Structures are given as C-alpha cells and as structure tokens.
C-alpha cells in the first residue's frame, strides 16, 4: 500500500501520499547524499531519508520533530557552515548540506575541558 515513491528512502519515517511529480533535489545529510522533492521542508527531507531529525540532549533518545508548525522547537539542525535551521519551516534547496548533530567545529569543546575529561590537568 505504501510502496516507495521517489525521494522516499527505504528507511524513512514519513510516507509520501501524493504530489510526487515534483522535480528532485539533491542534498547532503550528515555527510551522505540524499534526495528530496522541490517544495519539501527540510524536516520532510530528513524523515523521508531517515528516521530522526536530532538527538535529545538529555539522554532520552532520538527526536523526529513534533509540531511541524514552528512551535515546539524540536527540529533545529545545522548547516555545515553552522547556521541554525528549523527543519519544519525551512524549504530544501539544491545542494543544501545539513548536520543533525552540532558540528564540532562550531562549538568546539575547549582543550581545558578535554584534558579534564581525560583526568589530566591542563598544561
């Protein structure tokens, strides 16, 4: 009944029911190539190519959006350049590259904390 439609990865969470005759777009999710359809939100792109949007900071697992209307703030991701994007209210553009975990280069753990976590004293 829900046969795979263009742009739906086999591991996707959302199911496309109509409007599949739209031009395909290419994007990159966590470094891996993915496809979406023109007019998709980034959230739909993430959830047709996979099953999660981000991971909760507090240990209770993956998240896949919640309200889809920009209210819950549970779908924020990053571009490779570190820009914050709210997936449900961002349209996919060709060549977009997004990360579902904070890019380490943008909020790097300070060397001092790294040392402490290793049980070392800095310097």
């Amino acid at each position: 009944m829900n046969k795979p439609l263009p742009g739906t990865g086999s591991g996707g969470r959302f199911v496309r029911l109509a409007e599949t005759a739209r031009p395909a777009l290419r994007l990159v999710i966590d470094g891996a190539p993915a496809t979406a359809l023109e007019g998709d939100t980034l959230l739909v792109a993430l959830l047709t190519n996979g099953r999660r949007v981000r991971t909760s900071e507090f240990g209770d697992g993956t998240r896949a959006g919640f309200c889809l209307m920009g209210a819950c703030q549970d779908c924020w991701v990053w571009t490779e350049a570190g820009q914050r994007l709210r997936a449900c209210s961002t349209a996919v553009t060709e060549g977009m590259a997004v990360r579902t975990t904070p890019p380490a280069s943008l909020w790097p753990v300070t060397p001092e904390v790294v040392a402490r976590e290793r049980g070392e004293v800095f310097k």
Partner: protein
Amino acid sequence: MSAPRIVVVGAGPAGVRAAQALVEAGVRPIVVDEGRRDGGQIYRRQPEGFTRTHALLYGSEAAKAQALHRDFDALRPHIDHRTETLAWNVTAGQLHTVHAPSGATATLDVDALIVCAGATDRLMPVPGWQHAGCYSLGAAQIALKAQACAIGSRVVFMGSGPLLYLVAAQYVKAGARVNAVLDTSSAMPTPAALRGLLQRPRLLWRGLALKASLRLAGVKLMNAVTPLQIDATPDGGVSAVVVRDAHGNERRFDCDAVALGWHLRAESQLADLARCEFAFEPLSRQWLPRIDACGRSSTAGVYLAGDGARLLGADGAEAAGRLAALAALHDLAHERGRTLFAAEQSALQRTLATMNGFREGLAQAFPWPHEHAAALPHDTVVCRCEAITAGELRRSVRELGSQEVNRSKAFSRVGMGRCQGRYCGHAAAEIVAAAASIPVEKIGRLRSQAPVKPLLMSAQEHE
C-alpha cells in the same frame, strides 16, 4: 488620526480579516508573519508547485480557504507584508521583530497592535510521548496538507476534540493507514454539551459524518480511553500505543507514529509580554487574556483576535479579526473606521456569540482530561525539551515547598526548554496543583519571558 501606524501579527484567518478591514478603511497596515505564506494553520497553503485542489486539501472548508487566500492575495499591494518575520518582543507602543533568514531586526512604533497569534495543539503527556514518532494532531495534519505526507506507515490518533476525527479521516481519504482513533472523552455528550454543539448544526453533522466514514473504512474507534503508555525505544522511536478501554481492559495498538492532541491552547505570549491581564477560564481550564466584546485587551492599544485569544476556530477568528481591527480604528478616532465599526459591530458580535456557544459545547463534549496529569507515573516525562519528569515536578512541591507554578518552574526546570512551556505548561500546572492540593486556578500560570520564540544570537541591532 489619518495615517495610524497599525501592525497585525499573524496572517491566519484573524490577521487576514483584520488587515482587510484596515485596508478597506484606507489604512496601510504592517502584517508580520513567521511563515513564508499567509493562511495560518487551518488554511495553511501548500508550497508553490503542489497541485492538489482546495477541495482536496480543505474538504468542507474549501470555499472559505479559497476566499481567504484570494482575498489576501488581493490585499498584498495595499499592505506591508513581512514574511518569515517573528515578533519576538513587545514594549509600550513598540513591537520588536526579527527577519529570521537575515537576522535583521526592527522596532515598529505602533498606534495599535492587533495580535492574531493563533494556537497550538494542547497536549497531555503520555508516558513515552517524548520519543521519535510522536506528533501533535496539528503536525499530522500539516504533514498531509502542506507536504502530502503521512507521519508514518501505521498511525494511531489519540486525544479528543473534532480535530482528532477530522485529521484521521483526512489520512484515510489520502490513502494512509490508520490503525486506531482513540478518544479520551465519552461517546455520549452531556445534554449541556449537545445544546452548545447544536448552535452550529452543520458542523455537528459534519463531525458525525467523519466518525461514520472512519468506521466505514474499518478504522478502530474507541471512546473513554485512558492513555497508559506509548511503547518506544530511544533509537527506534514509537512502536505501539497502550490504553485502558472503557471496560478497564488494556488494549495495545501497533503503530510507527502517534498523533496526539486535545483541542488547542492559545498562543498568548505576546499578550503576556504586552502586560495584558489574564483570567482563568473554568470551562477550558486554561488562562486566557482578558478581552472585551470587541477584542480590546486590558492594555491600551493592544487588540487580540483569533485562537490566540479565544478558541473559536477559523470562522470565529475571521469575525474577531475584523471586529478588532474596526475597534482599533474606532479607538484611534479614524473616521472611516468609525463608520464601519458602527455599522458592523452588532452583527460581528452576534456571530462571535454563536461561535462561542459552539465552543462551549465542544469543551464539554471533548473535555481536557486534566485528571490524567495527577495520575501520571513519576517517571513520565512532562517537559519534553528538558526531560523533566512528573516526579521532579511533584518534588518541587513536596520537598522544596513550591505552591505556585512559576516557583515549580524555578525549582524543577519545567518550562525552561526551547518550547518555553508551550507543550508542558498546562499539564505541569495540573500536576503541581494536585501535588499541592490547591485548585489549578490558584496555582498560577507560567509567565511568558521574551523572546516569544528562540532568537538566533546572530540577530543584528538596527539603527
């Protein structure tokens, strides 16, 4: 005043009709909206390039949706429409906005502010609701309406209110698989509820027809359920919904997505920041900003219309938006506005009274199951953003002495996450009230703090 500076926040039904009234009166308002397109939620427009008809998207409301969209398109040359713009704060006589994509901020001096901020779904936590695959009812509808997607391949709908059946029926019609529709309210509305519902007989009829269509499609419908658990794993997400049925038996429904919702809660943050007074409404058990019969708040120059003030639905929002705009013009001594206001005030208020009667019937027929909050197991996550449990909330009362919801927030962190209490606030108040043995109307309400939604720290100052 010949050229009053009027700002409308929100381009849903209320905001559109407010803008339209202003333009008719010869005023050029600024209309601020977070989205790229007008329409709000119920009449959310699909992206350009989608081909489904209004009839397919909006069903029985197609004509209204089409009229709203068409009318707004006609307004465009006459308004200053600021899309993808968030009103993040308000101070006396000034609205503070940010254009999200660029980070450009602006401070708008306003003679009148008409806030049409709409509503979100109202959620009662269910153990496991924080996991991937759990959505609000509104989300399930937006996925379908705006993106032609179902939230999963086997969906369970749970909650109460007319939206529950509407979205489920829309899913079935669109070819999605719906495993169950689980309603926490009882099957038989009380006589008082029926009286309210009969104020809008066409709507009542449509509701019954939706239920019938679901049954005909073989979807399992249940009433008087008590949600027990959403089975899920941290990595895989949702796998089933477990409820107790009306006979006390545990029932389990496999699914890979759950849509939850118990009608709506008003988006009242701007009204709160504008220092509008609020009052507790016993019928819906939520705090709402005080407004008079025309939508005037307790703060001079601030008008509230649509679901962000009173949950009357789209039709009520359209009438309320128009009335509030005319009232604003009247109060600003705008001549044309005063003429329109005098001519239309009574009729618009009569419309709103009818809508309100229906709303009261809805609230009685599909009650907010507040008693579930007190019964939630201690380890139930209440604040999804911060992973705060019911037990931690109860501790704020029993061990740390809180007797008020903001104090409980300070002690437990409930409401301190990115959603700023939108999805946990009502349940948190019920839990704190139950733990403190104080009526919920005396436990306070979570006070809004700016920004209205998260503000990217790249936001630029303006001159």
